[in-house]
């Protein structure tokens, strides 16, 4: 069995879901998402955690242009495949209490987006990667713009233009790389074995970096993000923050750094500093937020900034300092951040549908009337602030460790995310859940049914991964080591 079944099933599912209306569409969509998860589970059970790419599919596609449908799963892809297939059913389940009009189209778009995301995470061909990249963008644009809030039109066209512009430069970069290969191929390993000079790698760096930096997003290309997150329907926000932004991080790991290490050497410090600025900037703004959803959006910006910072701790004074810890931390933190941020957005979705507001200052005392909800919220907050024995801890610890080995001062500044994060997260928790109830919150009903299920699964994951992250780290260990060695060996002979 090859990975192609994993890529095409959501497309088929999307077409099937289109035929259904309202409640039926939810169930059908969930059914397919769970099957997809089961499939991913099957792949996981057959996966050998070594350096090879497994379940490969390699079929001719556009032979006139040297394009092949090449995809497969290695240790790095596996983490992202788990993330995507795990979160999509949770996200669909989290919408069970909503009644979106045109539900068939809504769920079809989510499943279609899943296909695009999985294509990005498994593509081993530059052209396919680009197709997946855009195939994930179109559905989310329509999800946000059709089912979003008041300001959705303006905000989303901005979002679309930003990401589309970034990715077009990446396309130019991919075609350029293709032209450099002897065999005129788009194959990833063909790109890896190129011998580009430092100047060319510098250009490639920019072509890819723009696309990835917009997606993550890295300061100052982040301006689309808080508005888009706020205006999007809850499921759309979760898809974007939970999975879509990982496309950018994954792209840096899989494409940018191995293909253009000399470009990263040259401009990596700039990227690192921008990431750190982003961390501090987002944290400070998060402090001031009254709107819960915006607060989560900015906190997500800060956390992702830390991941980006660790990735760009690459070269210092001409010696190679890219560490396994930093990269492993980035991978596991992608998974953890996905789980936590989906949890947080779901919590705020629950609050805002019940109270019709997201203004923290109007709330208080919800813990008294909704104890189950309070526990779940607390666990998710603790996971987000990276308390030891929660999932956030292991990732952020490894990331900070990576940055620390690069430069202690940058690590100190970057480490502020954890402190700042703890402050504004716990403060918002206190504001919302503790203290006396008021007129607004006294009628808050506790979570039930699908909400319990979703939050229960998320909390269980937070704790289980927090206590025993080893199996996940083990999955990517060999692939990460291999990647670091190959990048290292690419830099040395050129020195």
């Amino acid at each position: 069995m090859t990975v192609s079944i994993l890529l095409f099933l959501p497309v088929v599912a999307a077409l099937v879901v289109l035929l259904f209306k309202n409640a039926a569409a939810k169930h059908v969509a969930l059914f397919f998402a769970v099957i997809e998860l089961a499939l991913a589970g099957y792949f996981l059970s057959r996966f050998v955690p070594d350096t090879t790419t497994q379940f490969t599919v390699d079929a001719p596609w556009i032979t006139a242009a040297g394009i092949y449908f090449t995809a497969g799963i290695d240790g790095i892809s596996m983490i992202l495949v788990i993330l995507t297939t795990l979160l999509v059913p949770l996200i669909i389940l989290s919408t069970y209490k909503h009644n979106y009009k045109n539900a068939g189209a809504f769920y079809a778009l989510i499943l279609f987006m899943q296909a695009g995301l999985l294509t990005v995470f498994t593509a081993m061909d530059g052209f396919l990667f680009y197709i997946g990249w855009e195939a994930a963008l179109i559905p989310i644009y329509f999800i946000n713009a059709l089912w979003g809030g008041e300001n959705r039109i303006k905000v989303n066209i901005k979002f679309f233009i930003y990401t589309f512009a970034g990715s077009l430069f990446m396309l130019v970069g991919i075609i350029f790389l293709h032209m450099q290969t002897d065999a005129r191929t788009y194959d990833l390993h063909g790109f890896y074995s190129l011998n580009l000079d430092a100047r060319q790698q510098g250009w490639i760096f920019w072509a890819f970096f723009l696309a990835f930096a917009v997606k993550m997003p890295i300061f100052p290309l982040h301006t689309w993000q808080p508005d888009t997150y706020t205006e999007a329907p809850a499921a759309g926000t979760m898809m974007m923050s939970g999975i879509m932004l990982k496309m950018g991080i994954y792209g840096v790991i899989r494409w940018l750094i191995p293909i253009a290490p000399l470009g990263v050497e040259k401009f990596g410090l700039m990227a690192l500093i921008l990431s750190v600025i982003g961390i501090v900037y987002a944290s400070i703004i998060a402090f001031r937020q009254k709107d819960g959803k915006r607060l989560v959006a900015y906190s997500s910006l800060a956390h992702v900034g830390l991941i980006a910072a660790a990735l760009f701790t690459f070269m210092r004074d001409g010696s190679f300092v890219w560490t396994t810890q930093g990269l492993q931390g980035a991978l596991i933190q992608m998974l953890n951040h996905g789980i936590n941020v989906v949890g947080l957005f779901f919590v705020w979705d629950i609050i805002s549908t019940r109270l019709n507001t997201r203004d923290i200052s109007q709330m208080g005392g919800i813990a008294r009337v909704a104890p189950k909800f309070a526990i779940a919220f607390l666990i998710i907050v603790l996971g987000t602030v990276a308390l030891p024995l929660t999932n956030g801890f292991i990732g952020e610890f490894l990331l900070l460790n990576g940055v620390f080995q690069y430069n202690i001062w940058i690590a100190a500044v970057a480490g502020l995310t954890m402190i700042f994060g703890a402050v504004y997260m716990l403060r918002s928790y206190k504001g919302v859940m503790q203290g006396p109830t008021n007129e607004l919150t006294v009628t808050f009903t506790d979570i039930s049914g699908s909400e319990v299920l979703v939050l229960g699964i998320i909390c269980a994951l937070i704790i289980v991964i927090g206590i025993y992250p080893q199996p996940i780290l083990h999955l990517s260990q060999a692939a990460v080591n291999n990647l670091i060695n190959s990048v290292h060996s690419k830099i040395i002979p050129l020195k």
Partner: protein
Amino acid sequence: MNTLIVLSVLPILVLYLGLYKAKSALLPVTVVGLLLALGLAIAAWTKHDDAVPIYHSMMRFDNYAIAFSSITIISTILILLLSKEYFERISSHVAEYYAIILFSLAGIIVMVSYYNLTMLFIGIEIMSVSLYILAGIRKNDFASNEAALKYFLMGAFSTGFLLFGIALIYGASGSFNIEIIRDWVLAHPKEIDPLFYTGIMLIIVGLCFKVGAAPFHFWTPDVYEGSPTLITAYMSTVAKTAAFAAFLRLFGACFQPLSDFWMPTLLIITVITLFIGNITALYQQSFKRMLAFSSISHAGYLLFAIVAIGGGSANSVFVYATAYSIASIIAFGALILVQQQSGTDNFDAFNGLAKKNPFLAFVLTVSMLSLAGIPLTAGFIGKFFVFSGALSQYHTTMVILAVINAIISIFYYFRVIIAMYFRDSEREQVAVPVYYNLVLGLAALITIAIGVYPEFITSLI
């Protein structure tokens, strides 16, 4: 070559049908005739492209000619299927429409298969004269008259340039035959006559006018807006595709060795065309005018393939022109329906369309995404081939400029999508005839099919 014969006899037959008032037979006969012509063209396709010049080396019906003949015939069929009841509404002489369109198509077949510069000229004239008439076919409408007059004057002017250019080439090389001209160029690499260079420049001017490239584009918006919408669709898709096919055929065959000389000129024309088309389109309130200006910018992308002339150029132009034609037909078809209902062609007329006509809104969205070059649609494959071709010749700066234009174009193509899906309006359902659904649905299907698996059209040439 039987295609050309069929297409020359068919319009005469149609005229006679009109004479005997056999109105209901017009469309079926035309479509069957076109299908026959298409079948004959496809039957002439050979795997190794070993067609020989025919008619004393006047024409050569090679795979290039077959591919472009086929796509122009297919586009014409789609447009004519949309014309049912449309021509009746705007004129009483319906047979004229069909006949003149078919005559121009005969000219187009000559344009894409010529092997001699005189045939190029004759083909362009057959097409252009037919188009002048079509533009002015609403005899009592001032806009239509103005369009025809403008088109005719400017067209006649540019034809003069083209003819002068051909004459100079003849003067320098001693032949009209493109094979002999090419051999002459290859034989005298160092001693090309200045006459020859001047000839190339004049031909560029003449052809750039025909394809609507800036700064020779001034006729396009007015002519496109003044002509009946379906005729605009025909002009901006079929006629434009043919003009590019003719352009590339000449430059690919004869002038490629001299590309150092003419390339800078064409490069500048391309950049100006892209920016003028895109930026002007951005400021339009009318959907039809937007399409007119965006067609200028698409001409810019197509010129790119000629600038980066090489083995892949034919394929790039073919794929791009196909994608562009099919998507434009959807756009114009939807425009006709909406215009009929609301009486205006402004963007506002599309507000809330998705609620009442989900299918129409969907196909128009596919069309807009394809025109904007979004992946999984044919338009992306076209842009991809054009960009690849340009990068293979190291026109990196140009590609960056083209990318910036692609980003600008998002704004105006998405305006339609935004109007249809995200803006509300009190509107009635637009009545969509069955054959519209069929044609638009088919066109959308082709657009997506090419976008997902372009292999079946990229291996034709």
